[in-house]
């Protein structure tokens, strides 16, 4: 009786643990199934490199290059914001902050991470966008720059907390060894601690990118929505996530447009998948390098 119960529990937890795998496979299968029909109509090359996205025109055009470039463009912009702020905060927290500053800053960063994206979007629409519009005398405030700034702020906590973890994994003994041969604090930081934590910090940056490129609600609200190839940071753009979110409701189920949107989702999935694999790979090497898991 007892033994049967034990076995049952074991199976239950195994099943629960593997359910994530089932979800993942399910998602990938659905993405492929719904996306593939579009490639009967448009070649993969025309789809990826086509410069016009007019899915509802007659005849429709399914080129998603503007959407891909928009996503990359705003993500790159977000990095310009979140890398210095995130890595800087991590270094400050780890190196300079006293217990009191840490006790304030760490929760603040965590709260920043838990603000719902619609709140960020709202902030971008109502405050940041009019401000940028006035400052740079733009025809429209909802543009790549606004999006990048908001996404950068959103990704900052991810970068900061993972980078801080990476720094704290660097064994104390490295610091002692460095000081013991006469290095000062700055030398210890730049020559020992940052190089030792380097790949962990790269992981933080990649996961931050992954966060930015997958963000939907904010982007839908502040990016401006124009599906044209961006030429400057002030252009309104239509990143992939925004296109899917905005158009899915109008695309008749099973139509070419519907399939094309799934294909965009598939590509987005592949991009974030690659990011995450890279992050995992780098962080595994990082732990190996520090002798943490051998």
């Amino acid at each position, binding site marked *: 009786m007892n033994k049967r119960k034990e076995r049952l529990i074991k199976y239950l937890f195994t099943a629960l643990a593997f359910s994530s795998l089932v979800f993942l496979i399910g998602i990938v299968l659905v993405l492929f199934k719904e996306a593939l029909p579009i490639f009967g109509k448009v070649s993969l090359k025309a789809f990826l490199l086509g410069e016009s996205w007019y899915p509802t025109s007659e005849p429709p055009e399914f080129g998603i290059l503007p959407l891909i470039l928009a996503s990359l463009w705003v993500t790159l912009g977000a990095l310009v914001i979140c890398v210095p702020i995130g890595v800087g905060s991590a270094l400050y927290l780890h190196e300079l902050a006293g217990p009191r500053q840490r006790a304030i800053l760490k929760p603040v960063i965590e709260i920043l991470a838990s603000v719902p994206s619609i709140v960020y979007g709202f902030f971008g629409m109502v405050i940041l966008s009019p401000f940028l519009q006035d400052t740079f005398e733009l025809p429209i405030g909802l543009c790549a720059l606004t999006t990048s700034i908001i996404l950068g702020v959103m990704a900052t906590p991810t970068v900061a907390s993972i980078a801080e973890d990476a720094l704290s994994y660097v*064994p104390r*003994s*490295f610091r002692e*060894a460095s000081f*013991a*041969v*006469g*290095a000062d604090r700055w030398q210890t930081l730049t020559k020992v601690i940052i190089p*030792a934590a380097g790949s962990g910090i790269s992981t933080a940056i990649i996961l931050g990118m992954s966060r930015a490129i997958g963000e939907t609600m904010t982007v839908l609200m502040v990016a401006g929505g124009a599906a044209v190839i961006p030429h400057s940071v002030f252009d309104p753009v239509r990143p992939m996530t925004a296109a899917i979110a905005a158009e899915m409701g109008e695309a008749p189920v099973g139509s070419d447009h519907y399939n094309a949107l799934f294909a965009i989702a598939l590509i987005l999935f592949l991009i974030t998948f690659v990011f995450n694999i890279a992050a995992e790979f780098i962080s595994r090497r990082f732990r190996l390098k520090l002798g943490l898991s051998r």
Partner: protein
Amino acid sequence: MHNVDYEKQPGMENFHPSLVKGPVGINMNYMGEADVFGPEAKISARKVNFYYGAKRALNNINISFSPRRVTAIIGPSGCGKSTFIRLINRMHELVPGTRFEGEILIDGLDILSPACDAAELRKRVGMVFQKPNPFPKTVFENVAYGLEVNGVTDKHLIEEKVVDSLKKAALWGEIKDRLKDSALGLSGGQQQRLCIARCLAVSPEVILFDEPCASLDPISTAKIEELILTLKKEYTIVIVTHNMQQAARVSDNTAFFLMGDLIETGRTDRIFKAPRDKRTEDYITGRFG
């Protein structure tokens, strides 16, 4: 620290001058007891107290270390051995909330005074830790690190120093073809000798060892001990150890700490043969918790 007739000093009955190489003098320590150290103390601690926050870890420590001698510091866990030797190169400054009183003189200058630059001091007083702690860099970079942070830019000089230090650390033969490999790929014993080489590269005068063999196998331990015996020709060495045999094998003088107090110091053979304090005797004979 004058040269006096050592045999007339109290406690010197067991002392045979023939056992000591080089000039010998008497160094009165602050317990009023004479012990044989070198000609002139390299390091003297005077009335040193140390606190972690409110917790007192060292009580009125008075001790001298002779140049080109090995002094072993022994005592049960938590008695303040590490705390004491970390004061000698001011590593205690890395721990927030600590405080000291008293002075430690090296060549007559108080190294604990704010006027003394900690980085400069640490170049003169190197340290080897309990667990080998090479950086995740190449073997070469590890040894060159100290030179680099001290502003040496001459490539030839660095190379020369690295080779020289590896040779002194008895590692060169094993490692000369692996200079560009990661230091983390070495065995524990090799890593520890690499750490010794890293410390030698900045030309210290004093080397502090905090249980350098604690994580090593007997063969690596023997190599490190042998190395310590060669290094003492040039350097003043202080070694913390839990291993009585090791203290007896490598050291000239021994100091016994107990609960933050320095109980007894003296020549190693004397301490082991005829400890004066009951507590020292209990500890070295293993009758002690």
